[in-house]
């Protein structure tokens, strides 16, 4: 089969880069990130400053936490669009609960509570996907509407402008404070640690546990995985539970960073997160994806949405650029799979 190709002139540099990208799609994402950074830095050399780096990291936290959950679901061959609704519900309901009933609750109780609440919703998604034998996209569109409607109808619509002290403190806590030469003070928020912990936990689960291997097995060829003794029910419960859990956490981080609990927030962010994960090299059809790639995808989306303003590209044009990147990456990844 190999010796019949007519134009086989030995692997060139391009070919080798192509093959490498085939094996490690996240390298392509990295290339896009670097190109974007170089492009912006040429247009505006001020961009390469510590405060901008901090800003990008800060803006990546909530997206990144969401994306880790979505990665697990996508890797297992599913899709979840309800996680933003779960996050909105958990953050708003929990803020309300803490404000009205337990004003002194510390953040180390609030975060686990949010995680548990989110996980409970996620597990319901997993149960429904399994029991109804319905594509997870349909199931999670349904639960998304349900959760959102329930939140706005029965919990409330009023904004919490004064969030509880523990959350406020958590949002303000800083890891590094940087005094720039021009007098600008910028801080790296402690919430970044949540993303680091989330990313590490997700990496550990995906790469170092039987569950992780089962997730990829189920996402690649579910029929064979089942035949080999992998319990797909556990896999579904777990990935949707994990996506829900992280959504709950992301919700609280979102409130803490914005110092505002708005039940209308986060809606519509689903596609952007899924796009970030796919840009990071995960296949929408399941069975692949890495934590590093996903983080790069998140950084890329954040760069485009937060930094292009810096060089005078109007915010209305950002979506087009993200769209172009997605088309480009999608095409490249599709070609790689065909080869």
């Amino acid at each position, binding site marked *: *089969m*190999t010796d*019949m*190709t*007519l134009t086989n002139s030995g692997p060139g540099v391009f070919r080798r880069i192509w093959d490498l990208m085939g094996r490690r799609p996240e390298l392509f994402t990295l290339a896009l990130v670097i190109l974007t950074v170089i492009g912006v830095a040429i247009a505006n050399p001020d961009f390469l400053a510590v405060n901008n780096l901090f800003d990008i990291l800060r803006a990546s936290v909530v997206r990144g936490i969401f994306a880790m959950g979505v990665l697990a679901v996508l890797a297992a061959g599913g899709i979840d669009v309800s996680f933003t609704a779960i996050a909105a519900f958990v953050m708003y309901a929990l803020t309300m609960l803490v404000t009205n009933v337990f004003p002194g609750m510390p953040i180390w109780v609030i975060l686990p509570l949010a995680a548990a609440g989110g996980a409970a919703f996620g597990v319901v998604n997993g149960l429904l996907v399994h029991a109804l034998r319905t594509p997870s996209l349909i199931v999670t569109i349904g639960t998304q509407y349900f959760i959102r409607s329930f939140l706005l109808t029965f919990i409330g619509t009023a904004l919490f402008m004064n969030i509880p002290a523990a959350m406020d403190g958590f949002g303000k806590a800083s890891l590094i404070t940087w005094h720039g030469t021009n007098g600008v003070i910028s801080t790296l928020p402690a919430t970044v640690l949540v993303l680091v912990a989330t990313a590490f936990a997700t990496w550990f689960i995906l*790469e*170092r*546990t*039987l*569950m*992780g*291997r*089962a997730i*990829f*097995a189920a*996402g*690649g*060829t579910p029929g*064979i*995985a*089942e*035949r*080999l*003794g*992998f*319990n797909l029910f*556990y*896999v579904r419960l*777990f990935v949707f539970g994990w996506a829900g859990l992280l959504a709950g956490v992301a919700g609280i981080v979102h409130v803490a960073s914005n110092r505002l609990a708005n039940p209308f927030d986060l809606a519509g962010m689903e596609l952007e997160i899924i796009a970030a994960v796919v840009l990071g090299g995960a296949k929408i059809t399941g*069975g*692949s994806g890495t934590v590093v790639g996903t983080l790069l995808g998140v950084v890329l989306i954040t760069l485009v949405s937060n930094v292009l303003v810096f060089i005078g590209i109007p915010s209305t044009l950002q979506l087009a650029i993200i769209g172009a990147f997605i088309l480009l990456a999608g095409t490249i990844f599709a070609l790689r799979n065909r080869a």
Partner: protein
Amino acid sequence: MQPQPAQSQKTGTAPFLEIRNVRKSFGGVQALKDVSVTLQAGQIYHLMGENGCGKSTLIKIISGAQPATSGQIFIDGVQTEGEVAGDLGAIGALRAGIETVYQDLSLLPNLSVAENVALTGQLVEADGSLARRLKLGALYETAAKALEQVHLPTDRAFLTRRIDTLPLATRQLVAIARAIAAEARLVIMDEPTTSLTRQEVNYLLSVVRELLDKGVTVLFVTHKLDEVKSLGGHAIIMRDGQKVAERDVTTTNKAEIGHLMTGREISEARYRTEPKIGDTLLQVEGLSQARAFTNLSFTVRKGEILGVTGLLDSGRNELALALSGVVPAERGTIRLGGRSVALRSPAEAIREGVGYVPEDRLTEGLFLEKSIQDNVTLPVLNRLRNFFGMISQRKARKLSEDQITDLQVVAPDVTVPVQSLSGGNQQRVLIGRWLTIEPRLLVLHGPTVGVDVGSKDTIFRIIQRLADDGMAVVIISDDLPELLQNCDRILVMRQGGIVADYAAEEVDEDGIYQTMAAGPATEAPANMDEEAAQ
């Protein structure tokens, strides 16, 4: 992790596996009627029978993929206890040391070699629980040990390689290595030689011999008796959900087994008599498609039946797809009736009068939950328009009724869903669909895959009649007797080229097989993986 070998020695006389009076029904259909089989440790068995005789159901029960409806299973003389009698369960079967290498190999294509070989071991150890750490060190160690026994590389680069980058023969060995890693006591192989070259088959058989020497029981599902004769052992022959005989393969000939399988003398008579061959219809010149086939040239005349065969990677399947416009060729010309045509899509092929009956009727051909009528009339809906531009139900019904009468489809009515029909009848519906476009050229890809002998006969007669009516027919198939019985000429493909053009009357099965398998001296299996780099 698995029953101790010591125990089996203690019980001594008990066979490794005994199934007694197993029955299995799906809805009202009895797939297995009271089957009892005994497998002794360290012996090899060949499970033979026609499609639909129940052999795959039997394997699924033995491997725990499906529970039996009733009956008992004994391992080492001890009756297994499941929720239902005769239900091993997937993990239960693995625990008993029963490993199945299905025809699709059941490998996880997106995982690494090491994971495919050794992951299930860790899963069994964890009793199916997934909340366990992956023991990477143990994974590589177990995998390397097992791979060594099938003489595959054991370095880290090979261990971490994704399965979907490996050639088929290597994957087969990986699947066997998985069985070895699981310290299998029974390895079931479902038609393991189907798409291998002869050299690869010989290599596989030598690996199997080593397994037998180690006391492993092997159950081969096969229809190629010649290939496995050198292994010896018993043939277990099934027909209509029952075991009809057991024979020693070394002393039994093919005709006898064929007779036992079908319950009648199999006629090897040619269906092709007095062909009425007309002018050239299809003229293919220099047809190429990267990685699949190169520079194919051949012609088919009106009323002629051309067979095309070759191994799985010979390019025969791709040729079928190119002729039907599903995956167009990249270079070369196709002429139909002297006029050059570009078959860039199935729609164009249909416009040019090319009908294509795909290999996998279930996923590529039929809309299973739709009615016969919907399936048959699909390509000609335009013609069935009434005055208002709507589809005339009356015309559609008439057309599909004509087809099913013509093709002797056994169905109560044209409104029943296609999935309620038997394989042979489904295939006839599919052929009927393409006859509605009144094709000049009919391309049949594996026309009798999964079809019982009776239906096969009907389908062959239909093919002959179509050719007699002046249609040009191309049959692409790996079923050599089918080609020999039906075709005028047979093209043999190998590695993307046509290597022989036989008159069907002047060649036999073995001659064709030699031609299709005899490749250039292939590389030693140990470094077969290099081939995959492409």
